[in-house]
């Protein structure tokens, strides 16, 4: 089983998000969601390039972030389906709660760290029993045969393979970044001129790829490179290249 673990990997998506928020500005009121989303996605991208497996959790958090961002980019607020709104609010609240929890543990881990640093200045004796009292200690090989030793070893090794990380816990990140999504949209519209969103994403197998391309469309729209039209909510979205 070949896998590689790097220090970076130990930071979860919530921790990463918190790091990005704290790196972005000392004034938490100045946080920009747009650059937060960008930083988060490029960090996932970077990890992918390090040939690491990226946990599903990262993708889920990215999707939530993207959803939040999408809603802000949309002109007006026509997505007023109540159930959907509530679900969205819940998702955002969960993300917020997890962020605050992460911040709590991060702050308190600083306290533990300084306690450890101080505690380290005092070393405890761990040597235990000296040879002078060795004869007073029961013999670990009492009633143990060579076969017993083997049995203990094999039981230990069997237990070890049981505690292996389940392979299902992590899934590779779908191979699409925001940049790649924009390029794909431009190339697609360059070829066909006008397209539906469904046609654009017909070859995409994962939710995150679809979300990426949706976000790409919104960005190209903001840049004035494409026109978007839709008759009503949940109707077909039509894309047209401008210029």
């Amino acid at each position, binding site marked *: 089983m070949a896998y590689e673990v790097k220090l970076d990997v130990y930071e979860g998506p919530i921790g990463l998000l918190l790091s990005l928020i704290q790196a972005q500005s000392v004034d938490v*009121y100045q946080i920009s969601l747009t650059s937060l989303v960008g930083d988060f996605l490029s960090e996932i991208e970077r990890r992918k390039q390090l040939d690491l497996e990226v*946990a599903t959790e990262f993708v889920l958090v990215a999707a939530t972030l993207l959803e939040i961002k999408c809603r802000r980019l949309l002109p007006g607020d026509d997505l007023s389906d109540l159930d959907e709104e509530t679900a969205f609010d819940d998702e955002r609240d969960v993300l*917020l709660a997890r962020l605050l929890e992460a911040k709590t*543990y991060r702050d308190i881990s*600083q306290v533990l760290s300084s306690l*450890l640093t101080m505690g380290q200045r005092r070393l405890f004796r761990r040597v235990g029993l*000296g040879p002078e009292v060795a004869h007073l200690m029961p013999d670990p090989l009492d009633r143990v045969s060579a076969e017993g030793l083997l049995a203990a070893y094999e039981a230990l090794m069997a237990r070890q393979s049981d505690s292996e990380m389940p392979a299902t816990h992590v899934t590779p990140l779908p191979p699409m970044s925001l940049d790649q999504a924009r390029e794909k949209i431009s190339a697609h519209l360059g070829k066909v001129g006008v397209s539906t969103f469904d046609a654009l994403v017909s070859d995409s197998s994962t939710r995150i790829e679809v979300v990426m391309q949706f976000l790409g469309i919104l960005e190209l729209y903001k840049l004035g490179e494409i026109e978007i039209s839709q008759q009503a909510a949940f109707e077909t979205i039509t894309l047209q290249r401008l210029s």
Partner: protein
Amino acid sequence: MESRLDHEYSAEALSAAIEALLLVAVEPLGIEELSRLTEAPVRQCQAVLNDLCGEYQSPRRGISIVQVAGGYRFATKPEHFEVVGEYARETYDARLSPAALETLAIVAYQQPISRRRVSVIRGVNSDAVMRLLAVKGYIEPAGRGTNPGSAVLYRTTTIFLERLGLNSLGELPELGKYAPSLEIAEAFEAALRDESS
């Protein structure tokens, strides 16, 4: 009950016996345990131990008896860290990465807790970090949950308390005091709500 020394302990003999026990102990020894092992009354043990601790306070001594993790333990004095630390670095390396510290904080405050639950809170597979903490002796398995097929639960160890210089888990800093302030919470929320703020 017959005393191990076949006669009443003199304070001096009891003190010496306790000193010997503390030298070989691999974990802090509580006063009840000392009393049981020496077969001397708790009160006498405590009195003798207090005197013994006092003796080691002398600046002539490089070691002292400290009360930690619910018991007593021989330890080097902090002023010799430079000399002792260099020798013991391999054996006593206490440094932890930020990820390991965060994981340790979660276990400390939510114990007993499964590896899986730690992973959920951190949002990332934390099995390797948990293993590191176990190998360093900061956490240990504490049995399984009550349901059939439950996962192994982990708790912090006496080594953890020793390294932090705490007498019990009750001395951990209060978690509530480190919860983000309302202002921070509002700012985070604003970041996730309004682009403009």
